[in-house]
Every structure is written in structure tokens, then in C-alpha cells.
């Protein structure tokens, strides 16, 4: 693995609410992972898995309540002002809801010029406008003159998402944390945004932490990179993307893979979702003891109810399951009947 840009060491994030009856929610519970310089990491999880919180920890919006976030080897929250400023520019965030992530009363140009002038990347308005135009071109909003003076509500969903990416690029970051960047835009436009991210990764060596619930888009972006699968605040399986998907070991990842729909009627209908004891995930505020997946796990034993399994294995494939070696391997469903679309 290349040099790490961001490394999480046993990071936890506990939110407390209320004053007298302190309600505790542990959104992230002891996560360790590495985001290499210029690499693509897909962080896959469902609602309540803590993936968004983890993204915000990487983006420095939260200070972890346990463990360490390291930026180029240094403890992020012990950095001096100057180094923290460097980190600020190095890591940027692209939100899911582009409409909410743009100030409704500021034009595209106004949103782009603020960081350009703040960091003196542009010395004056004229330069800022030139640079902003260049950035819009880079994210495929051409000709930029058409978009610079538009307000967010005058743009389409896909265009707004591109503006978000352009805004993140203003400060010449090394890593973009993209939290479900395509889940709120039309299907026909999603692939173009993913292609743009892939291209930025290749052309600028820009690292991407792609946070999603969708394994198929994760594959599109991160097949050459890394995959981390989260469940109720913990990483249950991670490693090199091809390696992990080639041989998924954790029962949760296997269930997730079985549930992914394939655009092929015959294959789709022959597939059955895994027969889980519980369809519905538990309340993330009260995670089960032991292995957090055990109430839904078809292979659970007594030990799973008592002892949480540790994430174990070589760097390119780690699994947190007591029976990672014993449970049967999983095969992709449509391998038997290849379809033109699958």
C-alpha cells in the first residue's frame, strides 16, 4: 500500500444528548483504516452503519471521542495551526444533497471564489473568475459562462453535484470524501458523475473516499482500490476491492451481496435474498452485545453473542468474524447465466 494520507486508529465517536438523562449513541466504534495517498476507498454500509459519521471524522468535522485520526502520520487534533490549515485544504467533502450543500442565495461563482480568495489561490476577482471558469470546465460544466452566475435553484441535480465537486477542487485537495454523491440524482446521470470522479483520480492523483450503500457503484469507482464494509459502527470486512469481492467472508457482506439486484430477469428471479433470522437491522442506539451482527446471522454460535470478533487477516483482506474460515464461500448469482446487462 502507498503512503497513507489519512489513517484511523481505533477511532470512536460517541454522541451524547440531553443533560440529565445522557443518551449515548456510539456511531463509530473502534474503526481502524487507511486511506492511501491518491487511492480510492469505497466505504459501504447501510442506514445507521456510521459511514457518514466516519466520513465526517475523516473530513475533520468531528473530533473523535476515542482513538486517533492521523494526517500524513501526525495526530490530526494535535497539529499546530499551520499544519491544520494544510490538512483543511488537503481533505474536502462532497455532500449527498447538492441542493442543501450550496448556499441558496449565492451564485456558483460566489461559492467558488470564497475559498479561492481566502487561500490567495487567486489574487483578485478577475483571477478568481478565470480560475472558477477553469474549474467548471474541469467538472464538465461547459461553457462555464453559462453557469458562473446561476443560483443553485437554477441548475439541475447533476449540474449542482458538479458544482460541489468544483468547489471542493478550488483548494487543490489531495482527498475528496464523497458521501453518497449520486444517490439523489437521476439514474441516467449517475454514471457521468462517477466517471468524473474516476477521471479526477486518474488525472490529478486525487484520493477518494467514496461512501455509499451501493456495492455496484462502489465497484465502478473502486475496483482497483480498496473496500471497507461497515455494520453498526464497525468495519466487518476490508481490503483490496477485488480480493474482498472475490472471496467475501463476513456473513453480512455475503447477505448484502445476495441482496443486490441484478438487471437480468432470469438471474434476478432465481436469486433469493439470504435467509436471515431478522430482516430488519437493530436500533443503532442499542447495538447487540458480542458480534453486532449475531441476531441476524445465520451462522451465529454462543461465542458470537458474548465476544466481539476482532478484525483479522493480511492488510489486503481483513474480516471480523469468529468463523471467517468455516462459513461457506459465496458465489455471484449470475455467473451461471450471463446476461448482456449484468
Amino acid at each position, binding site marked *: 500500500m502507498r503512503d497513507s494520507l489519512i489513517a484511523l486508529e481505533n477511532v470512536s465517536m460517541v454522541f451524547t444528548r440531553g443533560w440529565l438523562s445522557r443518551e449515548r449513541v456510539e456511531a463509530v466504534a473502534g474503526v481502524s483504516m487507511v486511506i492511501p495517498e491518491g487511492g480510492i476507498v469505497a466505504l459501504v454500509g447501510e442506514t445507521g452503519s456510521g459511514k457518514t459519521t466516519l466520513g465526517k471524522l475523516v*473530513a*475533520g*468535522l468531528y473530533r473523535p471521542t476515542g482513538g486517533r485520526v492521523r494526517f500524513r502520520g501526525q495526530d490530526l487534533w494535535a497539529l499546530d495551526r499551520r499544519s491544520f*490549515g494544510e490538512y*483543511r*485544504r488537503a*481533505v*474536502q*467533502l462532497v*455532500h449527498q*444533497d447538492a*441542493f*442543501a*450543500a*450550496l*448556499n*441558496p*442565495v*449565492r451564485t456558483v461563482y460566489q461559492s467558488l471564489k*470564497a*475559498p479561492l480568495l*481566502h*487561500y490567495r489561490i487567486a489574487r483578485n476577482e478577475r483571477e478568481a473568475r478565470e480560475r472558477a471558469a477553469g474549474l467548471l470546465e474541469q467538472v464538465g460544466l461547459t461553457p462555464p459562462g453559462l453557469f458562473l452566475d446561476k443560483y*443553485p*435553484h*437554477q441548475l439541475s441535480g447533476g449540474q449542482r453535484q458538479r458544482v*460541489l465537486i468544483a*468547489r471542493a477542487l*478550488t*483548494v487543490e485537495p489531495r482527498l475528496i470524501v464523497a458521501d453518497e454523491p449520486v444517490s439523489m440524482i437521476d439514474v441516467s446521470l449517475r454514471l457521468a458523475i462517477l466517471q468524473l470522479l474516476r477521471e479526477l483520480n486518474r488525472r490529478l492523483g486525487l484520493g477518494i473516499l467514496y461512501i455509499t450503500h451501493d456495492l455496484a457503484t462502489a465497484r465502478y469507482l473502486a475496483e482497483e482500490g480498496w473496500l471497507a464494509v461497515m455494520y453498526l459502527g464497525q468495519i466487518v470486512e476490508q481490503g483490496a476491492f477485488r480480493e474482498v469481492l472475490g472471496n467475501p467472508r463476513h456473513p453480512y457482506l455475503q447477505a448484502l451481496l445476495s441482496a443486490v439486484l441484478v438487471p437480468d430477469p432470469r438471474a434476478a428471479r432465481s436469486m433469493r435474498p439470504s435467509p436471515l433470522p431478522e430482516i430488519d437491522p437493530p436500533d443503532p442506539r442499542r447495538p447487540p452485545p458480542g458480534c453486532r451482527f449475531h441476531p441476524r446471522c445465520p451462522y451465529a454460535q454462543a461465542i458470537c453473542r458474548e465476544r466481539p470478533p476482532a478484525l483479522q487477516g493480511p492488510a489486503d483482506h481483513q474480516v471480523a468474524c469468529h468463523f471467517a474460515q468455516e462459513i461457506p464461500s459465496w458465489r455471484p448469482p449470475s455467473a451461471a447465466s450471463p446476461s448482456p446487462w449484468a
Partner: protein
Amino acid sequence: MGAFLSDLLHALQGNRRAAVGGLILAGYLLAALLGPALIPLDPTMKYAERFRPPSLAHPLGTDYAGRDVLAQIVHGSRDVLAIAVLTALFTTAMAVGIGALSGYSGGALDALLMLLTNIQLTVPAVPVYLLIGSVFQVRDPLGFAALISLWMWGPLARAVRSQILSLKEREFIEAARVLGLGTSHILLRELFPNLTPFVVIHFIRIMRDAITASVGLIFLGLAPFSPTNWGTMLNLAVFQTGAIYIPNALHYVLAPMAVIVLFQLGAIFFAHGLDEILNPRLRAPS
């Protein structure tokens, strides 16, 4: 700003209530600016002409000393409107400052400022005005506005705080923080522009309240400083000249009341209309 005004004019065409309110307010503004030049105020007392009913020469009749009521109303409107606008300016500045600081900082400062706000909201205004008014003599609209705004910022401060609280959780603020843009940028460039329509509406509401308060205080004789203020007129009509007991003098008592009510109506219509016009435009993509 030009674009905003043309948008506003355009929207006013579609919203009859706001348009009516706007016209009324514009009428008051014109009366205050141009009225005194067009309708001269003749202070000579002509007791023979006292309490004349409305006529062509005196559209609103005459007062206890035979002077034209309309002229007094028009000349009084300058002070009244000056007080209203100044009060709204002071109050808005205080409220936005306190509310924004409270909402953005949170913690102990927030608790302290909200305690102050709650005191302002729970202690009735009139005794406070009485107390301050008896210590400091109010001589001009500026002083008057300062006095009134001292006990009027609570509701807006609290509203601004809650707006800031919800805005600062919005993702575009998060994005600005990740970009490292700094607190002053976030407050002044990102948050405040989103508050503008909201504050404009409150500004009009405060003007309305300020007129009620100022007229009320003058009516009670607490701050008599202008002979043509509508409050002074009411005070004279009710307490000094006994006009309220004279059936012929009804117009004299009603005239200042009517202009106050009409102003209130205009302000309410305009503010409500603005609310309808400004809010959806910002909240939903068109």
C-alpha cells in the same frame, strides 16, 4: 440588489395583498416626505372655528383651536415615521447581533444571552419605559427610538437565534467549515444573506410595534415632545380639551386613530405578503 427589487416588484404584481400593503406604506412615506410642503400648518388659533366637521377646506375637520386636523396629521407623520424607522433599525441591529451571537456560539454565552432575552420578553414594556423615560428626558425621535428599542428586541433575537441554529447545521455551512473559511465569512457571507428576507419582514413588524408604543407613550403624557405627534393629538383630544365628550368633535378623536390603524393594516398586509413572496423562492428549487 437591483435584481432583488425588480423581482420584488414582479412578485408584488402577483400578490394583491402585499401590493395593497405596499401602496399604503408608500402613501405614508410620501405624506411624511412631501406632505408638509404641500399642506402648510397654520398654528393660529381660531376658536370660532373649533371642532368644525370635515369639509372641503378641512378634509378632516378642525381641532379645539380651529386648526386643520389633516395638516397636523401630515406634519406629525414625519416624527412618527422617523421614530418607527429608527426604532426598527436599532431593534433589528440589537436583535440580530444578540440572536446571531447566541445561536452561533452556543454554550454559556448562549445561556446568558437567552436569559437576558427571556427577561426582556417577560417583563412588561410599559413600566420599563416609564422608569427609563422618567430618568432620561426624551426630546427627539432619536432618543425616543433608543428608548423604545431598548425593550423590543426580544422576539426577533430569539427568532434569529433559532434560524441560526437551524442554518448552521445545514450542509453548505459544513462545506464552508471544511473549506476552512472562518467564522466571520460563515456568519456574514453565508448565514446572514439567508436571514435577509426574514429580517425584512420583522423590520416592518417592528415599525408597526414602534408606532403603537410611541403613540401610546405620548398619549399617556410620558414623553411629550412634539405638538403634532399623533399621540399628542390623541392626548389633547382625550385628556386636555375634553373633545372626547363633545359629539361634534368625534372626527378629531378618530382621525389620529384611523391613521394609526391604517398604517398597521398596511404593515401587516405588506409583511404577510412579503413572507409569501420571499419564502418559497428560497426554499424550493423552481
